[in-house]
């Protein structure tokens, strides 16, 4: 047999991937060319939403512990990745979320009390109001990625200048649906931006075991679409990457894959996950040191756009909103089996009508 090492190396090579960063962990601009075009009000608004979301997350965790919420996936640590990316969209643009992406939905117009109802296992949680362009949180990892291609094709066919932003995680990037979605988006040149929030763990499985690829961003190359890796703890970098990708997509210049390198400070979900079983305190501490809120706060304070007083006000506002919205969720009338049966089809067929009667008869017989 011939020696494989002899002769020219024809294997495909990838250029090293360089991560986009704008703010240092100390809140200093380190990449002047890539500072996004944001007004002071917009900068303040991104920070307000991140602080609000952190307070909301904290409250949601405690509501879950009290049994007032059902399934809940904490978001702390991922605020820059979530909020700054959604901030780069317009209301008419469409969000296809993963299961952790409630903040983007709410900031895109989905009422918070419905997010709580969804968590509490109430059907009304899923009734997205007219004019709010989002899908429900996707439970099947990666399913939203292929659907995003369809929603994007819909915009293209209807000649609407709108964009779809689909979110998944580092784990999600291993699913077949992920590759299929990227490939379709590229093949049909669709207005869609895929955001992989690489928070380092799919439940307990570290990124290093998820793929042999050095970055997730480079997976774009195989699909023939644009890919970029950004510092997911840096709201300005996330905004810049998403804004540019969204505007390119809007102008018919095709899809982009964005990998935001981030970390979830909390457990995978509140259903028994214990991160200490798979990651060290030191590692957590390192990520907490580069908290997205810290650097944005420092940056805005240096520009005179933020203060402790404002931050406290936002946290109070968040707490009051969460309290009011959870009460609204708790006061929503209970579902019925009859209503559930009627929600299956546009017109309930005779066999289901019969089952409704059967159910009522059994219920009446005490």
């Amino acid at each position: 047999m011939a020696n494989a090492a002899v002769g020219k190396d024809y294997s495909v090579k990838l250029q090293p991937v360089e991560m986009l960063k704008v703010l240092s962990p100390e809140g200093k601009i380190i990449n002047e060319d890539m500072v996004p075009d944001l007004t002071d009000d917009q900068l303040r608004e991104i920070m307000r939403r991140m602080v609000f979301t952190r307070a909301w997350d904290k409250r949601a965790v405690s509501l879950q512990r009290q049994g007032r919420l059902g399934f809940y996936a904490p978001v702390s640590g991922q605020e820059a990745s979530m909020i700054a990316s959604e901030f780069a969209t317009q209301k008419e643009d469409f969000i296809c979320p993963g299961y952790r992406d409630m903040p983007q939905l709410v900031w895109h117009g989905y009422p918070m009390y419905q997010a709580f109802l969804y968590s509490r296992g109430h059907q009304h949680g899923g009734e997205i109001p007219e004019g709010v362009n989002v899908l429900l949180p996707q439970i099947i990892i990666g399913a939203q990625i292929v659907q995003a291609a369809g929603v994007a094709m819909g915009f293209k066919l209807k000649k609407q200048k709108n964009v779809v932003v689909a979110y998944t995680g580092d784990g999600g990037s291993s699913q077949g649906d992920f590759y299929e979605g990227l490939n379709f988006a590229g093949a049909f040149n669709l207005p869609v931006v895929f955001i992989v929030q690489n928070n380092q763990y799919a439940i307990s499985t570290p990124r290093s075991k998820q793929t042999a690829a050095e970055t997730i961003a480079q997976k774009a190359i195989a699909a023939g679409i644009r890919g970029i890796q950004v510092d997911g703890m840096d709201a300005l970098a996330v905004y810049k990457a998403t804004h540019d990708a969204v505007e390119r997509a809007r102008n018919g210049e095709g899809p982009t894959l964005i990998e935001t390198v981030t970390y979830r400070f909390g457990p995978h979900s509140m259903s028994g996950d214990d991160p200490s079983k798979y990651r060290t305190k030191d590692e957590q501490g390192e990520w907490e040191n580069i908290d997205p809120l810290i650097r944005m706060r420092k940056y805005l304070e240096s520009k005179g756009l933020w203060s402790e007083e404002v931050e406290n006000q936002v946290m109070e506002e968040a707490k009051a909103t969460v309290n009011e919205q959870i009460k609204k969720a708790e006061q929503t009338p209970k579902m019925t089996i009859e209503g559930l049966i009627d929600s299956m089809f546009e017109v309930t067929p005779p066999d289901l009508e019969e089952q409704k009667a059967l159910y009522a008869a059994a219920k009446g017989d005490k």
Partner: protein
Amino acid sequence: MAQMTMIQAITDALRTELRRDPTVLVFGEDVGHVGGVFRATEGLQKEFGEERVFDTPLAESGIGGLAVGLGVQGFRPVAEIQFIGFIFEVMDSIVAQAARMRYRSGGRYNSPIVFRTPYGAGVKSPELHSDPLEGLLAQTPGIKVVVPSNPYDAKGLLISAIRDNDPVFFVEHLKLYRSIKGEVPEGEYTIPLGKANVVKEGKDVTIITYGAMVHTSLEAAKLIEQERGVSVEVIDLRTIKPLDMETVIASVQKTNRAIVVQEAQRSAGVAAEVIAQINEKAILHLEAPVLRCAPPDTVIAFPQIEDEWVPNAARIVHTLKQVLDF
């Protein structure tokens, strides 16, 4: 004998087979390092190493394909699908590949795979975690479907499933994982696949059921026995494909009346099949039509009304009365 929960019995079965047979491999999402989201594989990676008990990337289709390929290579994969709703991502590997391997290759290859997955109402899990999809699998030619109702059965059935040379879909009820304890012998023992268990003997009416509904049916039997002075027989199918109709028919010939209780939606499922076979094999022994007690044909109810959707003892009693009073 040790007292074990169902989850401990499952771990024990896996450990027993990993020790006995070097071709047994255990893998899936989060099953290695942390031992699974329900700790069903806890300690196994430590004992048997990363080559035999391992985490996979997050891709159910990948897990299924890996299992089929390893089966071709002579291994016995025990693949965990983290929650039952995720099987749709791996349906091709289960239904179109594993279940047909022996048939397509004229016996040259087979798929000695166990697909383990949790399911079941009663713990208010999010959507696509608890759906009763066992009927869907039972309709697939070439695959066996096992639903244990207690720790002792879970261990014996899982060992049989691992040793079986054909694919087995092994469905574990979430509510039973830790809610009941039972005596489980140490070491090897098997419960044959395709063999039902008469969990309570009676003479006036038979309840045919499986999984968590065995416990609800026993509760209902007690209620109606107190109220009516009748005697109820309860059969735990244990394996829903293939069905042990011999045990069912023998019971119906004795009691002449029967109902089938299932957690899965009413139509086209296990209950329908059991009733069809009773009609085929014992129609002249029946004093009343065989009725079903099952949830309506909706997607499994949202957690908020899950408990009302799943049959409870009162609804089973209602169905029993219809059969007794016919």
